[in-house]
């Protein structure tokens, strides 16, 4: 196994996912397959090859510091599951 159940629990927690033991079991199998597949890459000789962070070789895509219009507040809040017309409302977090 490339990934332990503990690691799956940890990743699930970071992603705010609640998994049953059955789900952990099935995730373990699936993630193991994925990791094994990606592991193939380590067979390639990469000594002296610069890391690729982007598929394109472009750089310096900039915009000028000019203000554009923001969304009307109504629009901005529209997709929030809970809002009061002024702000998004969430369970108390402190």
């Amino acid at each position, binding site marked *: 196994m490339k990934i332990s159940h503990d690691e799956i629990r940890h990743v699930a927690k970071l992603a705010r996912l609640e998994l049953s033991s059955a789900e952990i079991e099935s995730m373990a199998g699936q993630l193991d397959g994925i990791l094994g597949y990606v592991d193939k890459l380590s067979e390639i000789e990469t000594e002296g090859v610069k890391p690729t962070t982007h598929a394109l070789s472009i750089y310096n895509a900039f915009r000028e510091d000019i203000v554009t219009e923001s969304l009307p507040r109504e629009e901005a809040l529209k997709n929030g599951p809970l809002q009061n017309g002024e702000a*998004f*409302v969430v369970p*108390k977090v402190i």
Partner: protein
Amino acid sequence: MEFEIVIGLEVHAQLKTNTKIFCGCTTSFGAAPNSHTCPVCLGMPGVLPVLNKQVVDYSIRMALATNCEINRTNQFARKNYFYPDLPKGYQVSQFDLPIAEHGWVKIEVEDESKKIGLTRIHMEEDAGKLVHDEREPKSYVDLNRTAVPLIEIVSEPDLRSPEEAVAYLKKIHSILRYLDICDGNMQEGSFRCDANISLRPHGQKELGTRTELKNMNSFRNVQRALEYEIRRQRDLLLEGEEVVQATLLWDPDRNVTSSMRSKEEAHDYRYFPDPDLVPIVIDEEWIETARASLPELPGQRKQRFMEELGLPAYDAEVLTAAKELADYFEAALLGYDNAKKLSNWIMTELMREFKGGGPEDIAACKVSPANLAALLTMVQKGTISGKIAKTVFSDMMESGKEAEAIVKEKNLSQMSDEGDLVRIVQEIMADNPEQVEQFRDGKTKVMGFFVGQLMKKTKGQANPQMANELFQKELTK
């Protein structure tokens, strides 16, 4: 047991751009909640962030001003965690390739100069603001501040006392404001500081367990929070207990630090390069253009004040900490050439009477630099005494009137007319025959009494030197 204090600071400075870091929403402060957002800063799926060039330019300036090496290629990374003030579920920041590293600034503490290392400067986006309901278990999210550009400036753990930490912080603050890339307002949160602090027995190489302090929104709070935390850690260590690594919040009302629940268990941020943002490549030309645009920085200005104007290090430091005060000083110097006397007046009279804020607000002062120069020139010429000048100055601070107008209006010119003074001198002698006798018997100490009487009669307007001479002359007749 004696402990060595080890402090490192992280400063977050909001950059003074017009727009956010990756979209055109305005960065202006104080607007109605959620009125400055767009699909990009709201973190809608499928949007494309585009970097504000001014952010890079400002960061390069800060890097140059703090003697950093600029990474010719640098990139943004995603720092992943969930918190309601972070709509995307990650903060765009820099990780393994920040824009600048390995810098330093010089600080002055107790007349000693010390170099403090800068580990790195990186660009990132700010999070939104949370307002917590007093009664109900709810928090309100305002995303206006989301994606406002920040630079984080991380120091080496080179600071050895709260005083050094505050001096370093003031230096960074001063440089940012001289560069005009951050307004430095700590109350509004445009200049924030976190501190890492640990203690270790003198001579020990390994660092002790550190705690991280947050929520110190003034220089004074930084000092007090660090002092508190030093005492707390020292007590624990002396009791043989251990310092637990934690993030602590400073409570300025109760003067204590309290533990904060961790944002993310074990700080597992899973950084990775942001695929939406292409790398930034900075060439020599860009760096040289930025270098050429740098203003005179506080350290250079201080040096110039010392070398060209002959000011003591202390004066030069106080006058140059805020650009505005240094500008004021130099403007006044155009009309009055005694730099040291001018410096004394600004550091004592002006700063004491000025109620409009700190030295950075001095432009709002009712006494213009030219007016202060005019007042001091009147003292230099003997038109008014130094003592009267202080009264005139208070009046100027209140009314905003010119020095000469006040002196004329209130008839405060020093009496330097011999004829007038001789008459008063003779009156005083006639009224006090006993003291005259004493003086003639050799008790010259009564001279003080005579001059005092004269000052009383003239309401302090007599030229004291002339008064002395006249009494001397009249009494020995």
